[in-house]
């Protein structure tokens, strides 16, 4: 099974690919259906999307995994936003958020937490750890449109 999937492949041909204006979002969800849904929602809002099925693979993509050298990849520098499910086996969305905020390279990238459960203590915990926004599932098109505006503002 694929670890993560890019909606647009980066061609390493004759020259460097010019960075597009489309924000690049990394989306993490262990649920197959939700992963597909978030991918389409983001693409509909003109975002480039990379999906991952768990926190560890997301960290590996960003080059932040414990076993990785910070010089191995620069995927992280191209990511404009991270959106992750809260309830995941292994590493929760909260734990992933903490790891991202601990990284000097990624700490300023907005992180969005999604959850199907509306639990105030959970929400506060994530906001206190630096989450940009907490969203309830199932996600709607209007939710993602609003998110996109936020990212574009963050980019500056």
């Amino acid at each position, binding site marked *: 099974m694929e670890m993560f999937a890019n909606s647009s492949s980066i061609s390493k041909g004759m020259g460097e690919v010019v960075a597009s204006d489309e924000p690049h979002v990394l989306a993490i969800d262990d649920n197959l259906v939700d992963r597909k849904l978030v991918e389409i929602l983001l693409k*509909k809002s003109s975002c480039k999307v990379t999906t991952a099925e768990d926190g560890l693979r997301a960290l590996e993509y960003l080059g932040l995994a414990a076993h990785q050298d910070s010089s191995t990849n620069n995927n992280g520098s191209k990511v404009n936003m991270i959106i992750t499910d809260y309830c995941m086996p292994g590493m929760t969305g909260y734990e992933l958020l903490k790891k991202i905020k601990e990284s000097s390279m990624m700490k300023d990238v907005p992180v969005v937490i999604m959850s199907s459960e509306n639990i105030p203590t959970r929400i506060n915990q994530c906001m206190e750890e630096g989450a940009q926004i907490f969203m309830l599932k199932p996600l709607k098109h209007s939710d993602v449109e609003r998110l996109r505006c936020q990212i574009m503002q963050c980019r500056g």
Partner: protein
Amino acid sequence: MEQIQRKLAEYTASLYNEKILDEQFIQLQQLQDESNPDFVVEVVSLFFEDSERLFNELAKALVSKITEFSILVCKNSNQTNVDFKKLDAHVHQLKGSSSSIGAQRVQRVCISFRNYCDDRNVEGCLKCLQQVKIEYTFVKNKLETLFKLEKQFVDAGGSFPVV
């Protein structure tokens, strides 16, 4: 063509009236366009595949651990070797994906199912497993019929959105 259109409209309306599907399904339909022409069928197919997998996991976690005798003995007790945490994790997945496609009735049973897991109620869990499979099969048949009608409509020259 008009007949097909009417049939499709009536069938679609019935799915919402009978609370088989909710507004989330409409969200999915609105995401479908020329660049994602088969989105709804794709996502629903993923739901079917994933659900079948989860039913297998649920059966492994629940049914195979129980003998008829043990149900009689530990009807409402904690004496069982059912891993309720694992069970709950699987039901949580099913609840999530059914909610994401708008399969309202399946989602509702999952909520009860999770409550029985919290209470470590084996009998309740068994009943819910039965019920969720019934609701799943029901919505699967309904969706497959819907897709068939939609295809007939498109083949007859119709296009969406229907005014």
